[in-house]
Structures are given as C-alpha cells and as structure tokens.
C-alpha cells in the first residue's frame, strides 16, 4: 500500500511538474581488486548512475541505479523525492525508496568511503549495501541555538529483510569458491531479500546536532533508533572535523549500533536477551590537496555469547582532480568464523579506482 502511495506521488510529481530543463546525469564507476580472490583478473564492482534534478521550485528528485558487473539486473538503489522548502513549520519530507536517516554511515554511498568497503561490523546489522527501504521520512529543525535536526521515518521493509547473514556468507564464498558462484549467490540472496521485504514494517528516528566550534573545527553528534518487527536498534555517532584550509583536514568519526536479537543470529540460536553490538572508528588525515591516509577500527560483539571480533586497517587515497578520479588502497585484517568460537584472521589488500562523469556535487559535511 505504502509503495503504491509513494509510487503514485512520484509519478504525479514527475508527470505534472516536469519542465523543459533536463535533470543532471552522472555516472560513477569503480574497479576493485583484492588479493583474497583467486581469480587474478580485476573485478569491476559496477557503476552507479544518478539522475537528479528539481521537479518544481520546492521539490527535488534523486534516482540512483546500480549495475553490478555480472548478469544481475540493474538495481534501483534510491528513487526519492525530497521536499525541503514549501512545507509548513519548517518540515522536510522524503518519499520513495531511499536510505533512511539512521546513524551517520547508512546514508553514505560506498564510493564516498575513504576505507573502500563497508565496515564489516556495520554490515552485520545494516547489510553489505546498507539499509535502503521504501517509505516516508519527515524531519524538522528543533528551535535550539545550534543546528539540531530530528527525523522520523516509516518504511515498508525493515533491516532484517536484508539478512545480515548474507554478508558473512558472501565473504566466505569469496574465500572458497570462484567469483561466478559468488555472483550467483548474490543474485539469489537479492531475490530472497526482495521476497521478504514486504513482511516487516519499521520506524526509524534520528536526532542530530551540529556545532560550528569555530571557523575550522566542527562537531556533529547523533542518536538513532530503529524499531522493526520485534527488534530494536539503538545507535550513537560522532564526527569531528578540523579543516584549516583546502590542503589539510583531519576527520575523526565513530559510530556504534546495538541490535537486540530475538532468538537467532546467523541461523544459530542465541539467548533471547542477546545483543549484537557493532562499531567503527576512523581517523582520516588529508595532508595535501590530493592525498589522504587513515586508520579504521572495525568491531563487533555478541555480549552474552562472549564472542567478539576487531579488524584494524589502514587506508590511503589519491584524488588528483577533486573526486573525478580516485585511487584508494586498503590493507587490513579480515576475520572470519571457522566455527562457533574460532575466528581465522587474514590480511587483505584492496585497491580501488573510482571515476566519475558528470557535474561535481558540492560536498556536504
């Protein structure tokens, strides 16, 4: 019902508000290679196509399509209409399929990560491609002396419909099987996800604060919550940035999510009070207009099962002309479960090349 309503809104908006001005098109391609894959050939992760523009003076539409380098069909990542001006009481509204305002990292597209891949711990809750769902989200500035934004969303598919066990399974498959099998599994899992999406509705909330400490120091703090079918997630996030000029910046970012599990995790029975806690912390230093390096600590824990893991990694980036072409390198530990208690650790090296075609977008904090 919600999907039909949102689809109807988007269709009506596009049909009746379309003007002679074309939307902006941009394409981002990436090429990823890592040494854990037995096939030494380069693995193209795929391309993201973005179509963006105003539908009228108050609303904007953003559509993101993603195509993996395999036989899978083009995926609709996001198709969302955003009304930022025009609603009463300073309300903002998003409707369509999009990444809900839950935590800091969930709204970021993967090509923006300086550390190339989704932190494995976060993927255990949000899924490898993060939580994207169809729904409606409204947000409002709170009347405080600093920037304080509160958002509330309702969605037709919860996080569990993404099944975080897929991430582990995909990673294991990479280690043991050839890439073609990986891709088949991925497709299969996607289909499985879509089949489940209609089963759970979910709410999300986020309360974020931004402080301009001075001209070069900025701090953002956020609290998030999620409620799905008999499951809850609580989260907190933090970002600090020091940017004295265009050649140097230091970013510290950390986020923690705690997922109350029911009685099962990764198809294994767990205590009903079990909680999965995941977190990451990142330091990223831009030491030149084009170069940056940093450290990522990726953590997860099942408290009652006394089972936890931590993967440190270092990363390096080179972007000679803004972000029209970016080369990234990451060397880090990858931890996988061999059995219930034993985790085997690998050293994984990943190289990524990203290119973008189309208008350069201004950077949001």
């Amino acid at each position, binding site marked *: 019902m919600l999907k039909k309503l949102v689809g109807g809104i988007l269709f009506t908006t596009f049909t009746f508000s379309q003007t002679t001005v074309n939307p902006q098109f941009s394409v981002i391609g990436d090429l990823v290679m890592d040494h854990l894959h037995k096939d030494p050939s380069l693995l193209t992760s795929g391309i993201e196509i973005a179509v963006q523009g105003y539908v009228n003076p*108050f609303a*904007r539409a953003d559509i993101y399509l993603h195509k993996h380098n395999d036989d899978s069909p083009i995926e609709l990542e996001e198709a969302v209409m955003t009304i*930022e*001006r*025009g*609603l009463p009481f*300073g*309300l*903002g509204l998003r409707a369509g399929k999009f990444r809900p305002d839950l935590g800091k990292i969930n709204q970021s597209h993967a090509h923006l990560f300086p550390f190339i891949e989704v932190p494995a711990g976060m993927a255990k809750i949000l899924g490898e491609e993060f939580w994207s769902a169809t729904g409606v989200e409204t947000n409002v*500035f709170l009347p405080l002396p*600093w*920037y304080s*934004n509160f958002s509330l969303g309702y969605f037709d598919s919860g996080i569990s419909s993404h099944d975080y066990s897929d991430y582990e399974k995909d990673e294991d498959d990479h280690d043991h099987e050839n890439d073609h099998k990986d891709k088949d599994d991925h497709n299969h899992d996607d289909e499985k996800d879509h089949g489940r999406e209609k089963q759970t509705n979910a709410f999300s909330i986020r309360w*974020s604060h*931004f*402080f*301009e400490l001075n*001209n070069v120091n*900025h701090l*953002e703090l956020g609290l998030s919550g999620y409620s799905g079918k008999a499951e809850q997630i609580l989260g907190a996030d933090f970002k600090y940035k020091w*940017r004295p*000029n*265009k*050649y140097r910046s230091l970013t510290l970012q950390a986020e923690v999510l705690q997922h109350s599990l029911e009685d099962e995790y990764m198809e294994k029975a767990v205590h009903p009070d079990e909680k999965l806690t995941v977190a990451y912390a990142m330091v990223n230093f831009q030491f030149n*207009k*084009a170069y940056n390096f940093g450290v990522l600590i990726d953590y997860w824990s099942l408290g009652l099962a006394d089972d936890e893991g931590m993967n440190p990694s270092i990363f390096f980036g080179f972007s*000679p*002309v*803004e972000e*029209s072409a970016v080369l990234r390198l990451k060397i880090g530990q990858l931890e996988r479960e061999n059995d219930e208690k034993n985790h085997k650790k690998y050293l994984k090296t990943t190289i990524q090349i990203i290119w973008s*075609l189309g208008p*350069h977008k*201004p*950077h*949001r*904090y």
Partner: protein
Amino acid sequence: MRTLIIIMSMISFLFGKVRIVTSTTDIADIAKIIGGDHVTVTSIARGNQDPHYVEILPSYMLKVRKADIYFMVGMELDLWAQQIIDGSRNRKVLIVDCSVGINKMEVPTGQIDASMGDIHRFGNPHYWLDPENGKLIARMVAEKLINHDSKNADQYQANLTQFEKDLDSAISIWTKRFSNLKDKDIIFYHNSWPYFSKRFGLKTVDFLEPKPMITPSPSKLNQVIQKIKSDGIEVIASESYFSDRAPKFIASKTKVKTVKLAQSVGAIESADSYINLFETNLTILAKAYGVSYD
C-alpha cells in the same frame, strides 16, 4: 514600564531588520553599506576560502533559515548555495543572482567538457574584482532592499548614491596612482583576475594551473620558468587560499617575485572592505613591480 519600553525597542530593533545572507564576503560588505542599520548580513564563505568549493555545513542552513534575502555570486561559482538554501527549509527567502546585468567575460563558445578543467559555462565568475561591477552589485542589492523594505527606501537609495560616489572617486584615484601597472606582464595562479586586469591594464601572460583548478604539474612549472626567463616576467600572483609551494619553487629558479592577493574581502587583513580590497591588491602589485604609486 521604562524597562518594558527598552525591551520592546530592542526587540523591534533586532527583528525589524532585513536579514541578508550572501555567498561571499564581497557581496556581504556591499550589502552592509547599502543596508546600513536596517539590515543584518552574514556571509557563508569566508574571505580566505576558495569560493569554488565550500563544504556545506548544517549550520549554514540555520543561518539561511530566517533570511529574507540570499545574494548569490551566480555563474556557477557558488553552486553549493542552492543546497544550503534548500536545506534551510526557508520558503520565503528571496534568492538573488548578482551576476545578472554583468558584462560577462570569457564566456566559452562551442562544446565544453571536463577535459578543459573546471570551466564555467556562463563565463568567468570573478566579476566582483572589477570595482565597476561592484556598483552593479550595489544597485542590485539596493533594488531588492527597496522592494522588500519600502519604508526605508530613501535610506537605501541614499546609501547607494554615496557608495557609487565613493567608488567612482576611488576608481579615479586608483587609475592615476597605479597607472604604472599598466601593460605590466603578470602570471596568475588561477584565472580569477580577468576583470581586475582589464580594469587596471595588467597583461596576463600565463597561469600556473595548466587548466582551471588542475594542480600545477612539473611540466607546466618548467614551461612557466622558461617563459619568465625568456620574457622577463616580474611577478606571479596567487589567491590567498592557494599553497605557496609552486610559486616559491619558480621563484627559486628565477628572479620572479611572488605575491598573494586578496580575492575577496577579508582574504588579507588589510582588505577589510570592498574598497580596501582594491587598495590592498594594487599596493601589493605596485610594491612587487617596484613602481611608484603615491
């Protein structure tokens, strides 16, 4: 009772003002002059910041949230402004593009693409660096203020007349005092200065950037060094936000002098107003060339 009257007067004083937000400090300074005591003015970009790339901070949206008028530079220089305005949820703000009415320079012809660097399809957007264009910006600001706050129209008109008179007088003085800069060859880091050069007669012979916003490459630096040596170019000027490394490297290989100019109000301490922006830059250049300017 007296306290209440004072409080009411203060509230009226604060809330009766026209709230203006501008993309850059240059337009902000002009808006302050035209608006006087009847306006509050906030600039998003700082004077020493590269106006091409401003990271959009959530706090900027808060600044625009209650604004009555937003003055943009336009010509795709401050593309970031639209996201700030949208994010502010302010549905009443009047958005004004100050580039309307400017006689635009370097408007590209034919197809343009990213192979040309960060080229602006509507022409070079650094138009505020010609003081004559400052008058056009001031007229735009006055017109919008008069429409928005007609009860103070006379004051805005008087402030505009005075500003134009002051600027005309300054231009006349600068033209005479700095006439020795005329026809001097100069190399700029970035192509921010065509309006300034045209007004004061400087001859731009090259840029350190091989293409707009592309970092100087070793081959480009070598080419510039050869040009300086063969043509006897005396000065390299760069915007305050660029690194000194490339100009200093060239200076170490040649006898060229390197200077930093204020691309906007506040970029350099002495460039603390729109009129002082030109006074500062012209004085820096005259000193670098070693010409008299008194």
